[in-house]
């Protein structure tokens, strides 16, 4: 076994375990066995003997027992337990690498670890580890192929190994990094601190000022059933407590887990025929909140739980670091049922001027709904929308500054001002944050919601229902260029059919195949999420992969041929022909050995003539291929027609 091959095996095992380690999800105690990799592979690289069979056997049993305990009691999660098991396996295997097959086991388990890790994280570090893994794996596989062919020790192997590895790296970069991320992920997202960008967060504050940048990064993509018209209010989160600078929500302790009914988490029983399904691909946000059109009744997702709080906000368990996918089923309405709560009347300490203004505006109105409409209309009419807000003078709160001095601001100012005014006159109100609208992408027939679509509006509790008000004047949005839309649709397809291929799709596929082949079993299913799966997508991808593989094989073959020319090719064929006749031809058999082995055979003289020619061509200075092939054909013919094998 060559040193390079050993090195690659060790690298793969370490990368596999490292990929799990960087997710931060595995338990340190359960993965402590991974430390054994270091002495294990140290010994392996130095070519020291492997551990005794009995020890390995006993440890394997211990490993399995621990795994069972782990799955049932310690982690209580089969997925994590498998992750821990793979680490223990790698550690054990590092002491027990005897045959080439053992190395392949290591490759396989490393791959498994990568797959598990990809479920646990989506960090950039994992991306890097994945690319490294891929390069090392390809190199190891190509090398192992050459080893199998008995050619690993020659320098000529290195060329193909490098070529294939680099080619794969480029191809992978293109497929996995460039296509899905070009438009937004790495380039578009702004992490810079100190600059205020639009977007969503679970707090809202008026601490920083200056120009607010419109961040075009995509937040979510939505496929909707039916032909609905906007405006779409993608309701996310409610804010109820304001201290003059910051809005917060005091409800987080009161979330309840939704029951699962069939394949949906149900908030409230609803009439499926009246509901609107939204298939949502939500990009990672620094939040547990999920979005949907009001009012969400049911959510269908692969996640293991969904929670809801008393304000009708929905949450996933934990902030997701990768794109999640869910279907929200909503019965559309502009208001929600609700009960009054003192928290929705809370006001910041200094609110006198705002209260005066509110009373002034609503002086002529009698009932709550009219008062609220009056405030909404007043804000919409008298204030200018602007993303450029200067810092208020000392001692003036940002909202007072907006209302009485600068008279310009963006949705957060409008919504905050309206809530404060409504609360001042005794109407319970809260700020709602989320997104509004979205660009319809004609190429994919879905909506793109961007960070720049972030919005906040107002809900006021009037007559026992939370009614929606939006005091922000609408602004004309610039349309994105069609190239960007087209690229985005590629990303959407990627997310939809490759990355996000889930059990839901499998079900859909089965149903579609069922329909295709006329089976009646799947007729009675409930309304499906939009975007039904198309068989041609599978066919196209399969075709693409086959094409790529074919090109790869072609390039490899070409390379191999050019390197050795027809002389070697013909010599290999003759060796194979002799081997089939029972001659003990191994990789260390030389041409002289062949001469002595075949002495006395009817074709020995022509074989010797050929070998002479071959040697001259291959090892001599003569570079003429003219007759070598015909000579080889003749010899092969003679060998094949020779009477019988002469076993030695």
């Amino acid at each position, binding site marked *: 076994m060559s040193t390079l091959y050993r090195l690659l095996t060790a690298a793969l095992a370490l990368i596999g375990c490292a990929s799990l380690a960087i997710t931060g999800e595995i338990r340190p105690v359960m993965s402590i066995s991974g430390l054994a990799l270091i002495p294990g592979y140290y010994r392996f690289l130095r070519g020291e003997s492997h551990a005794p069979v009995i020890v390995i056997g006993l440890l394997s049993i211990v490993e399995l027992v621990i795994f069972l305990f782990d799955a049932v009691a310690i982690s209580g999660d089969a997925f994590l337990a498998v992750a821990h098991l793979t680490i223990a396996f790698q550690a054990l295997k590092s002491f027990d690498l005897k045959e080439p097959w053992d190395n392949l086991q290591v490759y396989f388990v490393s791959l498994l670890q990568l797959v598990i890790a990809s479920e646990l994280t989506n960090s950039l570090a994992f991306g890097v580890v994945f690319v490294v893994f891929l390069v090392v794996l390809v190199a190891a596989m190509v090398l192992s192929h050459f080893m199998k062919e008995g050619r690993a*020790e*020659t320098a000529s192997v290195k060329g193909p190994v490098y070529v294939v590895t680099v080619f794969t790296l480029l191809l992978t970069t293109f497929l996995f990094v460039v296509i899905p991320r070009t438009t937004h992920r790495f380039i578009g997202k702004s992490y810079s601190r100190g600059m205020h960008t639009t977007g969503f967060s679970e707090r809202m504050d008026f601490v920083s000022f200056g120009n607010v940048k419109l961040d075009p990064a995509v937040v979510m993509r939505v496929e909707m059933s039916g032909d609905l018209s906007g405006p779409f209010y993608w309701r996310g989160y409610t804010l109820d407590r304001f201290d003059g600078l910051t809005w917060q929500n005091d409800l987080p302790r009161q979330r309840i887990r939704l029951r699962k009914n069939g394949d949906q988490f149900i908030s409230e029983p609803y009439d499926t025929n009246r509901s609107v399904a939204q298939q949502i691909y939500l990009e990672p946000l620094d939040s547990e909140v999920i979005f949907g059109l009001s009012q969400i009744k049911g959510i269908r997702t692969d996640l293991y739980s969904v929670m809801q709080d008393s304000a009708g906000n929905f949450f996933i368990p934990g902030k997701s670091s990768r794109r999640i996918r869910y279907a929200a089923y909503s019965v559309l309405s502009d208001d929600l049922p609700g009960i009054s709560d003192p928290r929705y009347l809370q006001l910041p300490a200094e609110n006198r001027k705002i209260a005066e203004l509110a009373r002034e505006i609503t002086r002529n109105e009698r009932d709550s709904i009219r008062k609220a409409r009056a405030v909404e209309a007043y804000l919409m009419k008298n204030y200018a929308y602007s993303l450029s807000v200067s810092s208020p003078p000392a001692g003036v709160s940002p909202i007072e500054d907006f209302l009485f001095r600068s008279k310009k601001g963006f949705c957060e100012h409008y919504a905050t001002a309206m809530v404060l005014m409504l609360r001042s006159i005794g109407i319970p109100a809260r700020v709602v944050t989320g997104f509004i609208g979205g660009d319809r992408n004609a190429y994919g027939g879905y909506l793109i919601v961007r960070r720049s679509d972030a919005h906040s509006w107002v809900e006021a509790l009037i007559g026992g229902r939370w009614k929606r008000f939006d005091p922000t004047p609408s602004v004309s949005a610039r349309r994105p260029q069609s190239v960007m839309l087209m690229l985005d649709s590629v990303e959407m397809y990627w997310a939809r059919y490759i990355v996000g291929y889930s059990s839901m799709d499998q079900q859909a596929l089965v149903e579609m195949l069922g329909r295709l082949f006329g089976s009646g079993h799947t007729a009675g299913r409930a309304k499906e999420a939009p975007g039904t799966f198309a068989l041609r997508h599978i066919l196209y991808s399969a075709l693409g992969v086959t094409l790529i593989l074919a090109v790869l094989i072609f390039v490899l073959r070409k390379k191999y041929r050019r390197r050795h020319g027809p002389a070697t090719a013909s010599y290999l064929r003759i060796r194979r022909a002799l081997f089939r006749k029972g001659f003990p031809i191994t990789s*260390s058999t*030389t*041409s*002289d050995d062949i001469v002595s082995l075949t002495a006395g055979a009817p074709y020995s003289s022509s074989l010797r003539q050929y070998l002479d020619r071959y*040697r001259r061509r*291959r*090892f001599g*200075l003569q570079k003429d291929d003219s007759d070598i092939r015909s000579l080889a054909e003749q010899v092969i013919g003679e060998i094949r027609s020779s009477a019988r094998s002469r076993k030695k």
Partner: protein
Amino acid sequence: METVLQGKGGVIRMAIVALLGRGHLLIEDIPGVGKTTLASALARSMDCSFRRIQFTSDLLPTDILGVTIFNQETKEFEFRQGPVFSNIVLADEINRTNPKTQSALLEAMSEHRITTERTTLVLPEPFMVIATQNPVEYHGTFPLPESQLDRFMLHITIGYPLAEFERRAILRQSSFEILEDLQPVVSRQEIVRMQDEAGTVFAEDSVVDYLMQIVAGTRNHPEIRLGASTRGAQFFLRAARAYAYSDGRDFVLPDDVKALAPLVLGHRIIPRARKSIAESEALIEEIAESLPVPL
């Protein structure tokens, strides 16, 4: 030469390979199978000066290299050349003398010159040392130091002749008489020319790689304490070229490399367990057998 040493074509060929590769030859075998005869026959077939040094336990370096003596007539010190100043030097039973005297040959063998006191003297070309030795297990021998062993290109054994040839050998006249009858077949200039030509034999990259792998194999083998040196690898390639040349080819085959490996490398390695050179050669063969031949 075949007339002197019948049935030993392979051995003779190796002797010629060592000569063409500008190397030195170490012949090791039990007494009485024709070591000295082979060396003498090789020397006599060429039109070259030939000296024989019988190595004994009391031999001194000056007995080999020469000695500076005071000339009474000219009143000057003058150097009197020792037996090493000839084309073919037969160092007979080299392991009978002590290492000090053995080492006297070191510079002569590697650089074809000797240094005594202040003068450096160049040896005649071609220059070749043929040493014979008895297996180290025998009484009254000093094993050759590794540095000395490394300077021999090839290490060969002769072995008992086949029964048929042995019978002839016993019946015919004494081999020394035949030796007397041998006529030179090549001149000194021709030998030098052939040596030059053998040095230009083409070795394809993959063949050189193969050779390097075998050398590397001796360094990584678990049963070998010390593998072959870089000089060993140089000798190996030179021997392979000479071998190909002696076969009438102008290019080296992997076959040449494989065939020569045990003879070139066998005496250069130090196995972990104490073993004879023959067993070392078996180890080398094992290494060569485990490596794929370039196709």
